Structure formats: C-alpha cells, structure tokens
C-alpha cells in the first residue's frame, strides 16, 4: 500500500520535479525579457568540421536586445561585427567598413536571422514553427532537444540541443553532414537599456 501511494505520488506532476513544458519555458523567458530587455555575454564558438585538421575556434561578445536584434562581435581570430536586425544584416569589418544586406538581397536571411534570434533568446514559440521540441530537466536547469520538421532546415541540420537556466547557456548544432557547432555563453549580464554605442549599431538615435 505504501509502495502504491509512493508510486502514485511519483507519477503526480505536483510531486515530481517534472520537465517544464515549452509553454512554461516561453512564459519564463518572456518574463525575464520583460525585466531585462538587454542581455550581454561572452561567447565561445567551436566548429568541428571534417574539412579541418582541428576544431575551428571563435571568441567574442554579444548583445541581445529585445525588439532590436543581436550584435555579434567576433574578437578572435579576426575582428568582425555582425548586427542582425529584423530584416537586414550589417557586417562591419576591422576597417570599420559596413556592408548592409537586406532580406531582399539574400533570400532566406529573414528566416535564418529569426532562427538565430530565437535560439539565442530560447523563444520556444518561434522555434516550434520549425522544430519539434522535446524539453527535459527543470525550469531552473532545462535542456531542449530540437528536431527539425521536414523542410529545408531538415536538409541542413539533424538536431539542436540547448540548455540553460535563466538564460541560454549552451547550444549545440549537429549538421546533417556530421559537422557540429557548439556555442557556449559565459559572463551573462542583464540590463534594462542599451549603451549609446550599441544603440548606434542598431541604427537608433
């Protein structure tokens, strides 16, 4: 009898530390963004590709701003900044020369851009358009496994795994051809407003 009760308790969602639903995660992330619309972090990117003798390392910083987009600033091995907006992408080289491309110049840019922003923001609702999402862990230490729905995304990648707590901390993309990309975010800092220099990058005055 005791065993039965114990088993029942274990099965009851209230009693067990069950995996969060995507809706709960979405609410959580939205709430966090509400409190702090700006997030800054350092990133380390590692690409393991068959074409290379050893994994390709990239380091830099990023700024994620709700409603604006992402500033992706590579510091090593080259200096290069991408400003990813709603429908355009600005590439700024070390020489300061900016190259602006709009969604119209590059078919698929809007899609790839929104996917990138959705991944960085762990915006499960937007991700659900393209992926089947399998959550795991707890609301404070979650893991998501994303399997692409049939379509062009499935042609390019096999699976995405991401994890985090209050923010996304790690993203691993398994490409269809066996290559993989791992992104690790450290030193995450929340803020309510953008710095003047960042505002300029987004084209705000």
């Amino acid at each position: 009898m005791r065993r039965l009760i114990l088993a029942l308790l274990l099965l009851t969602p209230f009693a067990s530390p069950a995996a969060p639903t995507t809706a709960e995660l979405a609410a959580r992330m939205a709430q966090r963004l509400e409190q702090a619309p700006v997030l800054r972090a350092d990133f380390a990117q590692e690409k393991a590709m068959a074409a290379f003798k050893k994994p390709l390392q990239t380091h830099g910083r990023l700024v994620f701003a709700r409603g604006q987009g992402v500033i992706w600033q590579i510091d090593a091995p080259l200096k290069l900044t991408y400003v990813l907006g709603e429908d355009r992408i600005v590439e700024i080289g070390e020489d300061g020369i900016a190259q602006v491309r709009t969604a119209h110049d590059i078919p698929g840019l809007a899609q790839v851009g929104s996917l990138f922003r959705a991944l960085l923001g762990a915006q499960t609702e937007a991700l659900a358009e393209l992926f089947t999402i399998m959550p795991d862990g707890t609301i404070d230490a979650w893991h998501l496994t994303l399997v692409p729905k049939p379509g062009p995304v499935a042609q390019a990648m096999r699976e995405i795994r991401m994890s985090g707590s209050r923010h996304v901390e790690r993203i691993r993309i398994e490409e269809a051809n066996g290559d993989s990309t791992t992104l690790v975010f450290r030193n995450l800092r929340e803020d309510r407003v953008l710095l003047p220099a960042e505002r300029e990058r987004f084209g705000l005055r």
Partner: protein
Amino acid sequence: MRWRQLMAIVWLVLVLAAATHIALRFAGTSPLETDLLAMLPPTEKSATAEAAVKALSDQLGNRALFLVGHADADQARRAARSFAARLEASNAFKRVIAKAPQVDARSLTDFYLPYRSGLLAPDSYGALSRPDFPAENTLLRRLHQPFQTGIATDPTLDPFGFLQHWLSQLPFAQTRLMPSDGMLTVRDAQATWVLVLAEPLGSTFAGDTQARVIAAVASAESALREEAVPASLLRTGAVFYGDAARASAEREVDLIGGGSLIGILVLMWLLFRSVRPLALSLVTVACGIVFATAAVLVTHDRIHLITLVFGASLIGEAVDYAIQFFAARLDAGIRWQADKGIARLLPGLSTALATSLIGYGALTLTPFPAISQIALFAFTGLATAWLSVILLLPLLARAPGPYEGKDVRLPQRLLRTWNDRVTPRGVIALVLMLLAVSIPGWLHLTTDDDVRQLVARPATLVEQEARIRLLVGATGSSRFFLIEGANDEEALRREEALTERLRAHLGQGLAGYTSMSRFVPSAATQASQRTLLQQVLPPDRVAPLLTEAGLHDKAVTAWRDMLSSNATLTLQGWLGTPLAQPFKHQVLTTTNGTVLIVTLSNDDASLDLTALAAGLPGVSAIDKAASVSALLAEYRRLATFWLPFAGLIVFAVLAWRYGFRQGAAILLPTLVAMGMALGLYGFAGLSLTLFSLLALVLILGVGVNYAIFIVEAGERAPAPFAGVLLSAATTLLSFGLLALSSMPALHQFGLLLLIGISTAVLLAPAALTLGGARR
C-alpha cells in the same frame, strides 16, 4: 412573280443553312473567345516578340493560384492541404501542387561545382577586381561566420565561399513565400497564407474547363468555410477572369437582347395592334442576326464576347427597315399594294442602309480583332435584315393591314405642331443656340488611351489578385526584355550587357530580375572570371592561407585543380537539368538563333525600359500594355481625322439621292447631335477614347436614318412619322441597354450613341423644315 418567290425560297434556304452552321459550331466545343489577351491586336515589331508575349502569358495563364489563410499557422496549413486534396479529387485539374518545391541543395551544388572557377557573383567579381583583395580576411570571415544563409558548400572545395555566394544569388525564388513545414507560406498582420497551385485539365479558355474549375473551387471553398474558425481564400488566374467575362457577357446578351425584344414588341403593338407585323419584323431581325453570327463563325475560329454583346444591341437597329415597311403599309390602308409599296420605300431604305454601313465600315479600319468582328457582324446583320425586308415582306404581307392607323394621333399632332410653329429661321436659331451651348464643353474635352478600356475585369477578382501580389511579392509584370542572338553565346553576352545596366537600378524602381545569364554566364564571362581568379588567387598565395586556417592539404590540391580546369557551363547543359524546369519558357529557339527573355519583379513606372535597352544590339524592351495604349492613341488620332471625311462621304451619298440642299438639311440634325454629344462629354468630364470617336462615326451613319425616313415620308403622312419614332425608340432602347455593359468600350459606344441618336431624332423634323419633303 415566280422569280420573286424563287428568290424568297433561296433566301430562306440560306438562312436555314446559316442557322445549321451556327448550331453545329455551338454543339461542339464552344466557339466563344474568353481569352482577354485575344482582344488585343498584335503590337510588337517582330513575330518573335509576339511569341514571347504568348509564352509568358501561357506560363502564367495556365495555372490557378490560391492562398489559403488562417490566423493560426497550423490551421492554415491543414486547411490548405484539405483544400488541395478536394481540388485534386474533383478531376477538374491536371495537377494540384501544395508542397513547396524543393530546390535540392545537393544536386544544385553538385551541378555547379565542376564549373566554379568561371562562376563569380557580381560582388565577388567586384571585390576580386580591386587592387588589394583581402584574401585572408575573406577566408576567415567565411569560416567564422555565426550562421549560414542559403546553401552551405564544403570549405575544402570552396574555401573562400565564392560558389556559396554564387548559389545564394541565383534567382530561384523572387517571391516573399517561405517554405514552412513543407508548404510555401507568407504571413501578414492577420494570418498565415499558404500557397496552392493548380493546373486546370483542358484549355483554360474553354467553357467546360472553366465550369468544372469554378464548381470544384466553389465546393472546396465551402468546405473551408465549414471549419470552426473558417479559413479564407484568395484566388487568381486566367481561368477565373475568362469565366467571369463569359458569365457577364451572357448576362448582358440576355439583358440587351431580351430587353430590346420586349421593348420592340410592346412599342410595335402600340402602333400596329396586329400580330403579323410583329412576327414578320422579328423574322427579318432573326435573319440578320443568324447571317451575322454565321459570317463571324465562318471567317473566325472564335467569336469574341464583345461581338456577342454588341450583336444583341443590333436588334434595335436591324428592325428599323421592317418598321418602315409596315408603317408604309399602315399609311396606305386598303390601298396597299405590296409591290408598289416596296418600290417606293426602296430608295430611302437603301440610303439609310448605305449611311449605316459607312458608319460601321469605319470600325473595320482599326486593328483591334474584336472591333473588326463587331464591324463584320453589323455589316452582315444590317445588310441581310434589309435584304430580308425586300425579299420576304412583299410576299408575306401582300394583303392590306387590318388597322387604319387611329393611334397615330399623338405623332400626328407632334409633327403638325412642329410644321406649324417652326420656321427655317427658327431651326437655324435653334441649331446655333445648341452649338453655342456645346462649345464650352468642347474646350473641356480630354482623352484617354488606357488599355483597360478593352478588357473589363471584375472588381472582386482584381482585388484578390492585388492582395495576392502584395502578399507574394511577385508582380508578373507585363513588361520584359527580349534578347536575340545568332546563337546561345551571343544571346547570353547581349543579355549580360543589359543586366549590367539593370543591376544599377536594383532597389530603385526594380526589386529583381530573372535572366538566363544569372544561371549560365556566357563562355566569355566564365573565361574572364577564371582568369581573374588565376591572377588574384594563384595556388602559391592560397596554399599557405588554407594551411594556416587549419584546412587539410587536399583543399590546396582542390584549389590548384579548380584553377587549371577549363570546364565551361553551357546554356543547353543547364536547360537539361530539372533545376531549369521553371525557367524553360524564357529561352526560345528560332530559325534565326536564340531568344532570351528577361523578366522583372516589382518594377515601377520610373523604370524606363526603352532607355535601358537603347544602344544594346539585339535587346528590345517589350511592354504589351504600353504598346496597346500607344496603338489606341494612334488610332484615336486617326479617327479624329477620319471623322470629317466620313461626314463628307455620308453627305455625298445624301446629295446623290436628295441634292445638295436637301442632303445638307438631312445631315444637319446629326451634325448638331454629334456636337452636343461632344459638349456633354466635356461638361461631364468624360474622356474621349478611340471607342467614343468610333461611336461618333456610328452616330453619323445611323443618326441620319431618321431624317431620311421623315423626308421620304413627307409632312402629311402621320403613320410613317410614327414609324420613324418607333424605329428611333427601338434603336435607342438597344443602345441604352448597351450603355449598361461592363465592357468599357461597349459602354462608351452605348452612351454616346444614346446621347447622339436621341438628339438626332429630336431634331430630325428640321430636315423637313429646311429641305422640304421628297417629291
């Protein structure tokens, strides 16, 4: 007498033969022309250009395009899938496509890979051409970019990403539709829209195809509506326009034909109070319409809808000859002798016919296929109705009529009042006053040569098409470029000269273009791009960079092999792949060589195609709509010059029969009517078009009929005058109904004829006052 009966019998046999021919033609596939493009004349200089216009319109016209929309994206996709399944099951379509076409990235990359040394996107070419190409930076940027748009290539084979860049700028999808869950979708503020394409089974312009398609779409659409939250549907395609045009033409034929017939019966009953004149008049009209329809069907494959609608309005005019005959019979009473009667009427009826034919003859001088069909119809219809009166009526109405003309008192009083009160001086004063009033209107006249006068498109379909264009972002512009070359290579080179100019306008009046050289550069361009790569990035310079970046040694070998390869991509090689399928209609092979079509997307009026093509050999700018408008303008100007000439010819006919003075008196009411009609147009702010000018020529030809009839009858004859009023009333009724037509050209005919002929009729007694009766 025998001779006459024989003629009548021969005539009736001919009518039967014509009627049989019509019945047989309509029993097979319907000979109605619902292709709106067929209304337009050939406008382009060369047959090749016309063939290109046709190829493009077929490409667009043979399919029906749907967007299924719902606020919820999943629901929208589900609704679109079930909508497509219902269309598929209906058997009305050859193919129904709801799945997003998969541009297979692998086969695309594999196809272009061997030729990559000659393939550079324009901005790669620009960067490599600059003196200090930053090779290392380009390599690192390509390797460390955070995300990849478009197709990813293997860094071993494409370390700098030039091929990747080339592939990403191929003009595969010039629309805003995005693949999502296997379907092409686009979102707006309210809904997610999903694309469904369907190719009708059978010719888009055949009536039975249209009926099947419309029924299938209607039933699939009602299924969409039955959902808890109904999905919405937008549609476009030539099949819908063709069906709508046919349906509205049929409605108008019923309205104009039916209305005219009922009106004629009622009006004739008022005057004749006898069945025989009514029945026999209708017989002559029926003969006219049967011969007219047969004449068009014998000389043309298909009968234009506009001809059919206009034909219905011809009833009111064709009945005039019979009315004059029976009015004379009524006038004669028991003294009626059919042979003498027709002999007395013949000159007047012939003159009236001649002037009408002059009016309609003007229509044959325009190059518009539908308008010259109308002219043929009217010519044959009026002439055979007239012949029927002359050949049949004297035999069928030999006996005097039963009625003695008591009910002509009102016309009698009208005529007497006019004759008693109105003096020649009074007529002159009235004419001068009417003209004086019209003059300010003339000064306000404007002109309009828009091609849309010829093609009426229902507002609901136009609105849906506009929304679809906005959502999808593709325009299917009617403007394009044509490039002609002696062979593939020359055509491609000439096309490249043009696209270099086009690139400068991207973002300014032009969103994009699709040209073959974007898929297959000319051999010359491939060679020069390969040379550039060899010069700027020789293996000695590239090898250390690749090694430094961490690539395997085989990347160095691959680079060396690529630069030494001479593989050149050819147009025929590209056309042989499934990837080229959607673009095949843009390459035409003629006896003179190769013809390429460059299509534009979202081009606006600021883009001057003629200027862009100027000075480029073999390149011509094609703009069907503008060409047709230019043609309309040219013929409008011609018609303006023709009008006084037509007046002179009509006057010559009148003067031949009536002499100068009486001829002028007969023509005067019609000239004043034309002046007043023009004045009214000016006051109302309506624009003059080719069709309003043609209508003026018709007023000239038809308007004088009534003055002719009055002058022939003389002032003491109340019954013939009542006949004149009756003729005028039936004609006005038909043209008045024609003014209700949804086809702009016919609407203008009807409106102007209504104004002009009613004025001409009201002033017709002036011909008597000024010129006197014919003795």
